[in-house]
């Protein structure tokens, strides 16, 4: 783990430049415009996470794929393993926004949910 880092916040499009440094009882954080930036900086220094968005194969619908996302951010190092599981998954229409496609993927406690409606044909 790095003790100090300069980060660009990705929580929102403003993209604050945040300096973070580990101190005895916590962190020294500068440059963030909001609370979410503080949380991001600590997480980025200790255990970086990302939302993953991709598609999953859908049968019996207008388009061959339907878009999905992780319901919460997942550890960065697990992204490719998660992609592997999703690419071997198939669903059948109808699919609605928010439908759980894979529950608790790789024991992360995070679900893969649909981000698009796929109508049946």
């Amino acid at each position, binding site marked *: 783990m790095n003790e100090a880092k300069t980060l660009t916040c990705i929580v929102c499009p403003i993209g604050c430049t945040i300096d973070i440094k580990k101190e005895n009882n916590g962190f020294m954080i500068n440059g963030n415009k909001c609370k979410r930036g503080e949380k991001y900086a600590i997480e980025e220094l200790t255990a970086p996470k990302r939302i993953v968005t*991709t598609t999953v194969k859908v049968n019996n619908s207008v388009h061959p794929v339907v878009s999905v996302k992780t319901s919460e951010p997942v550890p960065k190092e697990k992204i490719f393993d998660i992609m592997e599981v999703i690419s071997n998954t198939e669903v059948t229409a109808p699919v609605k926004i928010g439908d759980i496609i894979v529950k608790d993927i790789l024991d992360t406690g995070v679900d893969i949910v649909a981000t698009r409606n796929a109508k049946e044909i």
Partner: protein
Amino acid sequence: MKYDVVVIGGGPAGLAAAYEAYRNGVNKVLVIERDKELGGILNQCIHNGFGIHHFGEELTGPEYSQRFIDDIDKTNIEVIVDTMVLQIDEQNKVHAINNENGYMIIEAKAVILAMGCRERTRGAINIPGSRPAGVFTAGTAQRFINMEGYMPGKEVVILGSGDIGLIMARRMTLEGADVKCVVELMPYSNGLTRNIVQCLDDYGIPLKLSHTVVNIHGKDRVEGVTIAKVDKNLKPIKGTEEFIKCDTLLLSVGLIPENELTRACGIKIDRRTNGPVVGELRQTSKEGVFACGNVVHVHDLVDYVTEEGYLSGKGAALFVKDEMNTDITHKTKNGYGIGYVVPQNININNIENEVRFYMRVKNVYKNHVIKAKVGDEVIAKKREVKFTPGEMIGFSIKKEQFEKLVGNEIEFFVEGV
């Protein structure tokens, strides 16, 4: 067919415009969409980050557009899809065509243009070399992967660091492609900083600033590209060429507002935005015709597109009810460092509280301030650590300030501090 308001384009701009016109008391609203479903380009933008300003949460593109489609479904707004608008004539009648109804002439009291924008292609930037398969715009590749389920290539070079290029660098990496690098002509990226972090840095994809593609190799399929460093005048420097083996070149080299209809009906175009000159309610130079979204100027956040859609919907509603002032009281001027300002015209009688101006700077400015000046008096300013051409700047001026103005020209300019 007779309507009060006809909206051309069913993407985020058009949906917001139609809904707002309806909410402001217009009964007969029609949305005409070229694709087979509503949602526009958001349908292919499956990444998250949309709606933070508008909804206060992070949505993916399809989720964002679905919220507006759901709103529209609850009203009596009519929608026709798979339909191409060909012309808007002198009386603002909309000429359109589709498979089912053939040629249609639709009468409208007000028309809202919301056709969005399209990508610049290889032809627009004249890259030398042979013409093999495997050269795509980034958005086309995005549609292929995210909607049609095709993978356009395995070894990829991306030219241009606009947001779509950056997003596609990550997307193709996730799908198993080897993205060799993103090549950017300018000494800075045109994309949002957050996209550079989470699309390139996260995956170790190099961003080569001040570089361009000088040759494309391959006969049937791309076999590689030659890139080179460019000098201050953006000319390739001899001796810096480097061959990169790849089977795919994605182009993310800018967007052009899609204004064929606008031009053909004689609406005045701003050569800086490539979109129509508009007023505070997004009225164009043709009475009864409004415009919003990327057809006016290319936005980097859809939240702002939605805001602009609302403005034009409100404007069209006022116009239909004959409650709009159609003359111009103030004009904006692009001063030092300012690429463009929207809106270009103002009528203060149509303003409720404030006018929100959107603008882009021409260059990267650190520790600068943007000022708005009338005559010799500075009436508003905005200071940021950094202004870059890739990030649109919002700038509000209150109605009271307008009423105090002595001149009718508002000049925006960048100044060092």
